[in-house]
């Protein structure tokens, strides 16, 4: 967890007699050991801590962390106080104390307790009746945006209009809790919340009708041709499909075939087609096809 090294000793080049070099090196180590650093072993982000020093005289203290670096003059034998602000970021810190030589030690600052919940939910719109189409991922962070890695239980709750709420409790692993679920049978807003203690994050997934199912069409001759329209277009669960869903009408007049694309508007798609003789009209949308409609020739 923490290590102490003497950089000056490492870089020292022995130019003279080996014994003299070893002696100098040992002497430097001894000097360094006179001013060791006692770094905190349980530092928590956003909480003040102190580093104890021994020895006497003045020295220069350096702290290099994930988001901070500073140096200051200190008196050996006294504690070096680190403020809560200086230790806001969780991670690996190196404390260095330099007199003639430098001693250093590493220590970790761990995240504080969860203060915010980041919650990602996909997709924002989901067709009804699809398996495992909705998913959410929650990340707990402390007040300084450190990812909280200690296991915690996140409760996901899903509430749709007209059905009972469902919930599941998931424990975080490595700072992540997630779920995956199928969409419901009814179109409408699905409220999803993730909560951890008193923290709550809410998202909404709009459940929309799936592909059209069982198209039914009707039509009649008019002065301009034939007017064809669908009955209300719904998916297989009975939800009206969204406006703008395209229905393709096909008219076969002998050997001639004509097509018209019409958007669904207020549940119904309409089109006027030009045809003089007897025609057979059909409709399709997505993979769904409708009934065939036979209309006689214009008199």
């Amino acid at each position: 967890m923490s290590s102490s090294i003497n950089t000056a000793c490492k870089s020292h080049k022995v130019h003279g007699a080996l014994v003299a070099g070893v002696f100098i090196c040992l002497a430097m180590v001894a000097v360094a050991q006179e001013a060791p650093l006692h770094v905190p072993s349980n530092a928590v982000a956003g909480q003040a801590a102190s580093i104890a020093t021994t020895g006497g005289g003045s020295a220069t203290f350096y702290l290099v962390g994930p988001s901070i670096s500073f140096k200051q003059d200190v008196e050996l034998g006294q504690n070096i106080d680190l403020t809560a602000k200086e230790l806001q970021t969780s991670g690996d810190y190196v404390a260095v104390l330099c007199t003639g030589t430098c001693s250093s030690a590493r220590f970790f600052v761990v995240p504080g307790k969860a203060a915010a919940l980041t919650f990602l939910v996909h997709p924002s719109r989901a067709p009804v009746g699809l398996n495992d189409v909705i998913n959410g991922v929650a990340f707990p962070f402390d007040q300084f945006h450190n990812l909280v890695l200690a296991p915690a239980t996140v409760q996901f709750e899903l509430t749709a209009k007209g059905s009972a709420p469902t919930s599941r409790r998931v424990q975080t692993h490595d700072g992540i809790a997630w779920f995956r679920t199928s969409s419901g049978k009814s179109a409408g807003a699905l409220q999803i919340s993730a909560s951890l203690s008193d923290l709550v994050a809410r998202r909404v997934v709009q459940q929309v009708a799936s592909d059209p199912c069982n198209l039914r069409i009707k039509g009649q001759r008019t002065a301009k041709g034939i007017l064809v329209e669908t009955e209300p277009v719904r998916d297989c669960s009975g939800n009206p499909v969204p406006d703008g869903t395209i229905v393709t009408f096909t008219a076969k007049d002998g050997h001639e075939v004509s097509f018209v694309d019409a958007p669904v508007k207020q549940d119904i798609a309409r089109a006027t087609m030009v045809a003089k003789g007897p025609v057979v009209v059909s409709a399709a949308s997505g993979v769904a096809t409708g009934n065939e409609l036979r209309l006689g020739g214009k008199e």
Partner: protein
Amino acid sequence: MKTDFRYMEHHSQVRVIATIVLVLLSSSALFAADNSPQVTLDASKAGPRSVEVLTQRAIVRDYKFAWTNLDAALESNSASPLNGLFAGTANDWLRQAVSSQQRSGIISRYLNQRHKLDAIFYAPAGDVIELHDTAEYDFEIHDGGKTIHNDHAIVHYVVLMTPGADRWVVRQLQAVPQF
């Protein structure tokens, strides 16, 4: 004739100098290549979504690039190398680190980097990946040209990356005592 000889002598000197320059340049290029971070990724344990091969390559490429530029930023005390590679919290922290180094006159270096990445979570929608990085490097701190600290460190990082428009960006880079 005497002039020709001098010309030849001069010419051979130029060739020797050019050869030395070329050797130095190529050796420095080799040195630069050796000094770039080595990154490996094991995505076999990632879930719930599996990480496609192209995605793995992109993550390795961008993570390597991120650490190269992290070192460049903290060596030069300039935040500009961080642009586009870090986002959110990781970006904020690194910029704070650079600005506090500027104030104190400290420079830090991450040399001879080796990163062993393990993908441990890849979101179902593919919008976030969590990695465990066992990083190994020579960490140096300099103050006014004097090396005040160097050690060979093995540090464990929890990393969150998200896909951007054309690359993966590092959003969280948090050292932990152990995984």
